[in-house]
């Protein structure tokens, strides 16, 4: 009986449609085209993903932890939401993951974490970051993100930090190698919760960003010099 009912429903729906054996060469549903979208680059809400790559700049006075500019970098992958308030002002949030590596300069004056010099030494931070920002847009535009400047504040949690040391041994070791890599996972002197301010200037997909960490990288109980806290880079949005 159920099968018969199902058959009748299907048969009825077939009759209801215009013609079962039509060969449709071209079709347009205008009602779908004329729906005003709620989301879009310059509509009320807009979401997109992005990636970014930045360089860490040494910002400290004499005695601070010296990092190597060029090899101290940050990779970012994130999701950004914007809510438009008016044509020139919007607010939003940004959730991102970043890998930030501080290449520590090896020198006779080095004191972090020890005074021992290696071939290379990198403090690697893997963070989840949440940011709230204000956006100022410039100029009239259609459904484009356009030119804008963001100013915001962020907090981040370093969930997987490591101090990576690479060195070359004077002679082959017991494992038959002259190169050695040591990873000190989640060192206890690193402050896992950090915060700071951020800004971006952008034209549509491409943004130049800068972040400035206001918190101290290392716990107060350690007397390590502070690390570089300015990062400047480029982000590219996907939309």
């Amino acid at each position, binding site marked *: 009986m159920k099968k018969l009912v199902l058959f009748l429903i299907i048969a009825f729906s077939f*009759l*209801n*449609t*215009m*013609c079962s*054996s*039509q*060969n*449709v*060469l*071209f*079709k*347009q*549903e*205008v*009602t779908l*085209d*004329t729906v*005003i979208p709620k989301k879009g680059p*310059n509509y009320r809400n807009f979401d997109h993903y992005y990636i970014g790559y930045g360089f860490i*700049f*040494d*910002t*400290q*006075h004499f005695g*601070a932890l010296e990092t190597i500019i060029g090899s101290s970098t940050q990779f970012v992958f994130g999701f950004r939401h914007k809510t438009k308030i008016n044509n020139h002002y919007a607010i939003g949030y940004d959730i991102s993951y970043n890998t930030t590596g501080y290449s520590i300069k090896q020198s006779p004056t080095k004191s972090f974490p020890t005074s021992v010099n290696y071939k290379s030494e990198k403090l690697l931070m893997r963070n989840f970051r949440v940011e709230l920002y204000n956006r100022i847009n*410039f*100029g*009239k*535009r*259609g*459904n*484009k993100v356009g*030119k*804008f*400047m963001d100013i915001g504040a962020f907090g981040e949690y370093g969930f997987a930090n490591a101090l990576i040391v690479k060195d070359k041994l004077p002679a082959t070791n017991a494992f038959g190698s002259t190169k050695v890599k040591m990873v000190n996972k989640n060192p206890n002197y690193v402050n896992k919760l950090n915060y700071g301010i951020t*800004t971006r*200037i952008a034209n549509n997909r491409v943004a*130049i960003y*800068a972040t400035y960490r*206001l918190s*101290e990288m290392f716990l107060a109980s350690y007397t390590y*010099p*502070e690390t570089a*806290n*300015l990062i*400047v880079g480029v982000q590219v949005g996907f939309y």
Partner: protein
Amino acid sequence: MNLLPNKQTCRTVFLFVLIIQCFSAQAQQKYWVFFTNKANTVFNPYTYFDAKAIERRIINNVSLVDSTDFPINEFYYNTVSANVDSVSNSTRWFNGMCVYANENQIQKIQQFYFVRSIEALPFQSMHLASYNETSFNEKLSDDQKKLLVGQTTRLQADEFKKANIDGSGIRIAIFDAGFPNVDTNPAFEHIRKANKIIKTYDFVRKKDFVYGYAEHGSCVLSCIAGKAGDVNIGLATGAEFLLARTEMGKREPFSEEENWLAAVEWSDKNGVQIINSSLGYTGDRYFTTDMNGKKSLVSRAANLAARKGILVVNAAGNEGSSAWKTIGTPADADSVLTVGGIDMASDFHTDFSSYGPTADNRLKPNVCAFGHVIAAGKNGLEKTQGTSFSSPLVAGFAACALQTNRNLKNMELYLEIEKSADLYPYFDYAHGYGVPQASYFTEKNKTQSTATFDFVNENNYLTVKIQDAFFGKDTIDTKSNRLYYHIENDKGVITSYYIISVENQDVLKFSNYDYKKGQKIMVHYKNYTNSFTF
């Protein structure tokens, strides 16, 4: 711990701030300054207008002394000029001038008693309505030769040819990005020999030379009047031309509406009867909801040109397969004849051609023509595509149509071209009324189309039944057994439209329960159109 930045940080921050400054609105910008009146100005149409412009106005019952044609008040012009960095353009029609100024200067100008309003003119892209081009030099393959012949044959060019109609005596202006080699290319030799290029002006560089820059304009001109040996590329090989460079071409940096506006006034002054404009503004500055024919300055200028007796033919745009999808502006203006593109192989909408309707639900495009063409570019014949080339095919058609009856007013011509199209009175938002047909203008005895199908409303079902004489047993899709239909809501707005191949005699069946009172189904099959209202 000291967290204050050191010198290096300061340098970085300074650089960052410098870049921010580049984004700020304090820099010099372009503005439209509109005036309250044209007091104390004098205008003599007989010294200002070309004789052809006066003739056109008389035919179109347009006054020779219209306030929009009066010059800008000299005192206003000089006062504003003295208070800005430079003047870019001025407009009689909208009684204003376009200036470069900074914010302080604009604030000062705003205080002048004769200033009605000031509008910032952000830089924006003007999109040429064409796709990538492939160069084929002078030689054409068999398929390309077929396309070359097809692009005019589809408009029944032979009908005009038989009647010796080639657009002679009709003056057409083309607004484009450049016309390289039009002064040397053999495709335009007949135009040059007959001195049919009346005037040229480069509104970007403010000089007469236009025979360089992007080749888009050369291709467009060829689709109106070019010749490839003995074969016509366009229909109006005998027309006269004004060539205006209003766009920057492939670089498409940030050209402005002001060039378009200046060119349309220049065209009006010089007696142009038809303007072809294969370009449009879309998402850089506007939302799709702005495409209502009133929002943009070019759209209003195009409508004003129509009021002065000029037929403006504009490409629908190439956004059909993009997120924008709909037509741009000024194709959205109600008095602009907007042209969509069809594919030669399928003979219906080509995927890139922008769709209508306008934001206020008016029919656009109005008509269509081939969107893939053979054109004469900078270095010879090329296969190219875009509604940029559909538009000049129809502009050439319009010139020929006007030649058949020179007393037609521009909006009468507009309506006649719509009526001549092969789907008329059927329409949809991809094809408009279809492809204009020359026989409509050349045949004295127009035959009434005979009924090819019936609406049968029985047992609460509406069936569209093909008449025996018009139903073939061949189920393979051919161009002749296509049926077009659309469904309109009770406000006359199409909600969906289709093309199907007829494979059954009872080709369509609609349940009366699925449709509200006032909804309408319009069907077109083999030159016959009928509709049924629920």
